[in-house]
């Protein structure tokens, strides 16, 4: 992309941002909430809504949320956590009833609130609509909500009339849009935020689109929901490829996906899912789930799966889980297919004497081998017993895999023993040791194959040792020994020195020197490799707006510089910051990569302009957070 194009785009960006935001939801442009959908109306001398933070600030406001109406000097609304706070000469009316106070924290949906007055004493009145229970009010007054914060938003609106819908969407009338503090376009009616996403019952046309690679695309969905009873979603995707030139694949493709859940009773529910693809591929699953108690449940299911060019499979399944408390957890599942295929599994787990845990699992499978009449039969199982104490932990595993069809049996016992990290010299040094021993026994017909291996690891690390104020050292050492029957034994070890020094306030230096060595031993022969690395990092963080570091890496063994990285982040104006990442390769003697980011943090989202030199890409990213 040429620089001219980039410049044009950047200058027009303030207009693309709102258009981009709202084009993704065409309903934003003109939809007016019906009386039924409207939760609360606000009229004020000054109302401001921040799109970035989803917050409202208002002055001299009249508000209505049936059956209440109120006036106040100020209002602050934080939509996302649903905090509504009116203050300053609050006058609350309901019919002929009139109450006055200084603060009013309320919930317009539950029609409840707390009215507080500061006179000779603090008086707190709980307000509720008739027949409604008083809910605990959120005592959090939105402290972080100020007019200044809204005016520093990337996108905000100013007007004198707002509506808040039951799904907490915000509509504005005669509003002025501000982008980065600059006055932009005006709207007579505008949906400022789309509220909490809620799907409505019925058919919806999600998308009709055309692309050069996929042709004409259409997406339609049907949704039906009856609260706590039925939930059903069916989606249809259609692709018409015949409109494309030189397209070699199928002329058209249809995908249908459907999922329905029905709650018959609180402890009994069933579901049906189905998928169909026009290339003759489909599957369906029906399940019925029964919770006998909170700790015992059973599910029965039936599924049919039809792969492309293969015979379909019909599976019947049953699975059950039980938590029997001190007698442990048991689960079982079994599936049978009409072509004599079987899948079963069983597991039992329990903890004894608080520290000894036991797990037993077993499975058996009998499945087709391609289209041949033979079936593979595999029985596998495992037992795990582990004990952990304050000083050490020990665990034994036994794994068995028996291929009954191929007459192959693998048994693999293993033992793990580890000491919990322990402290030496009053916590100055922390040490850790663990050992794993594995034995394999593979029997294939009359042939038998045995192997074993043992791995021991020791690590030592020191706490930071302060030589001066702001100057510390620490040291890590590790040693590993691996031995096995085949004799591919090795010993590896290494250490890392770490130095930290605060030079001046906001500037620190970190040095790191490491040596790693791996030695292979066989009989009297010792061979191996050693590597060394010397790295230095200079960190600069003198203020909130400037943050960066630069690192260098050097290989002392070969007397060679390796690479350098630099990362700098600078706050420019408002919430814009420039971030750059540079990589220099000393071996190739060139700047390998430069990434430049121009970032605007805007509450609910982040706007990023990215330049990547390696791929020569310029990207504009709109990242919701």
């Amino acid at each position: 992309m040429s620089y001219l194009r980039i410049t044009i785009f950047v200058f027009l960006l303030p207009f693309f941002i709102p258009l981009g935001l709202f084009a993704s939801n065409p309903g934003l442009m003109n939809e007016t909430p019906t009386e039924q959908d409207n939760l609360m109306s606000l009229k004020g001398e000054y109302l401001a809504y921040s799109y970035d933070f989803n917050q409202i600030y208002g002055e001299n406001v009249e508000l209505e949320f049936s059956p209440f109406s109120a006036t106040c000097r100020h209002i602050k609304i934080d939509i996302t956590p649903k905090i509504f706070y009116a203050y300053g000469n609050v006058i609350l009316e309901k019919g002929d009833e009139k109450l006055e106070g200084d603060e009013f924290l309320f919930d317009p949906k539950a029609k409840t609130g707390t009215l507080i007055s500061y006179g000779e004493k603090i008086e707190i009145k709980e307000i509720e609509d008739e027949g409604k229970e008083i809910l605990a009010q959120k005592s959090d007054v939105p402290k972080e909500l100020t007019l200044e914060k809204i005016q520093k938003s990337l996108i905000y609106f100013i007007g004198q009339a707002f509506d808040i819908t039951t799904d907490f969407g915000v509509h504005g009338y005669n509003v002025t849009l501000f982008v980065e503090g600059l006055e932009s376009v005006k709207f007579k009616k505008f949906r400022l935020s789309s509220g909490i996403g809620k799907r409505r019952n019925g058919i919806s046309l999600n998308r009709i689109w055309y692309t050069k690679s996929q042709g004409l695309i259409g997406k339609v969905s049907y949704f039906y929901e009856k609260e706590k009873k039925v939930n059903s979603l069916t989606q249809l995707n259609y692709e018409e490829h015949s409109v494309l030139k030189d397209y070699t694949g199928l002329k058209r493709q249809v995908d249908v996906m459907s999922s329905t859940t029905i709650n018959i009773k609180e402890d009994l529910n069933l579901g049906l899912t189905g998928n169909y693809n026009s290339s003759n591929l489909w599957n369906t699953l029906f399940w019925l789930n029964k919770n006998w108690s909170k700790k015992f449940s059973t599910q029965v299911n039936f599924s049919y799966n039809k792969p492309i060019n293969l015979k379909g499979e019909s599976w019947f399944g049953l699975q059950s889980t039980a938590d029997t408390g001190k007698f442990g957890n048991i689960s079982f599942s079994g599936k049978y297919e009409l072509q004599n295929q079987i899948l079963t599994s069983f597991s039992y787990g329990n903890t004894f004497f608080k520290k000894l845990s036991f797990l037993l699992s077993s499975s058996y499978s009998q499945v087709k081998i391609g289209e041949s009449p033979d079936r593979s039969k595999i029985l596998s199982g495992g037992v795990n017993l582990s004990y952990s104490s304050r000083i050490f932990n020990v665990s034994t595993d036994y794994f068995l895999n028996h291929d009954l069809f191929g007459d192959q049996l693998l048994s693999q016992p293993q033992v793990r023993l580890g000491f919990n990290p322990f402290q030496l010299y009053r916590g100055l040094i922390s040490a850790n040791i663990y050992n794993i021993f594995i034995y394999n026994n593979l029997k294939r017909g009359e042939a038998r194959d045995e192997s074993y291996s043992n791995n021991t690891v020791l690590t030592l690390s020191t706490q930071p040792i302060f030589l001066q104020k702001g100057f510390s050292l620490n040291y890590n050492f590790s040693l590993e020994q691996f031995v096995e029957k085949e004799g591919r034994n090795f010993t590896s070890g290494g250490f890392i020195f770490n130095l930290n020094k605060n030079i001046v306030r906001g500037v620190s230096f970190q040095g790191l020197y490491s040596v790693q060595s791996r030695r292979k031993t066989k009989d009297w022969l010792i061979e191996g490799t050693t590597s060394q690395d010397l790295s230095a990092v200079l960190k600069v963080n003198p203020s909130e707006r400037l943050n960066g570091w630069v690192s260098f890496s050097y290989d002392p063994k070969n007397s060679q510089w390796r690479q350098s990285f630099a990362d700098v982040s600078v706050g420019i104006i408002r919430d814009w910051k420039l971030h750059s990442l540079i990589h220099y390769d000393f071996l190739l003697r060139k700047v390998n990569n430069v990434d430049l980011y121009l970032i605007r943090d805007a509450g609910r989202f982040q706007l990023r302009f990215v330049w990547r030199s390696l791929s020569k890409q310029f990207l504009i990213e709109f990242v919701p957070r």
Partner: protein
Amino acid sequence: MKRYLFLSVLVMSLIFLWDCISLKRDYPLPSENQLVSIHLCKKIDDSGDLLKPLDIKSEFTSKDDSVICFIRLKDIGTKIDLRWKWYSPDKKLVRDTGNIIVSQGDRYLAAATAYDRLQLDAENTAEGQWTVVIFMNDKFIAKKPFQISPSSLRL
């Protein structure tokens, strides 16, 4: 050619950015006399034109001499008076400053600071959560709760 095209687009963009360089404002403006911040502190720095809070805290002990409630306002264009009300943990009013004139409104002030001090008495100050409430021109504008702990907890 490219240079002219670039300049044309730049000028058009700037015109758009400033909404066709319309000087007439037809959107509402916020009121004057905006509250900027409110802090509880132990000391005040009065060396500059504006006061500054020092040793900002939300927890005090009964051995502290006093609690200061400091307030900063901006864009003051009208007459304003401020009033502080201090409430003990049993929600009773223990100090009321009455209305104190901060600005006569005869000239615009970009910023103004003010504070009130609650004297603590080691023997008689109740421990628990206190509340200080501030009124501007008889309208509630802010409150700040704070804790008074036993002096033995003082660090």
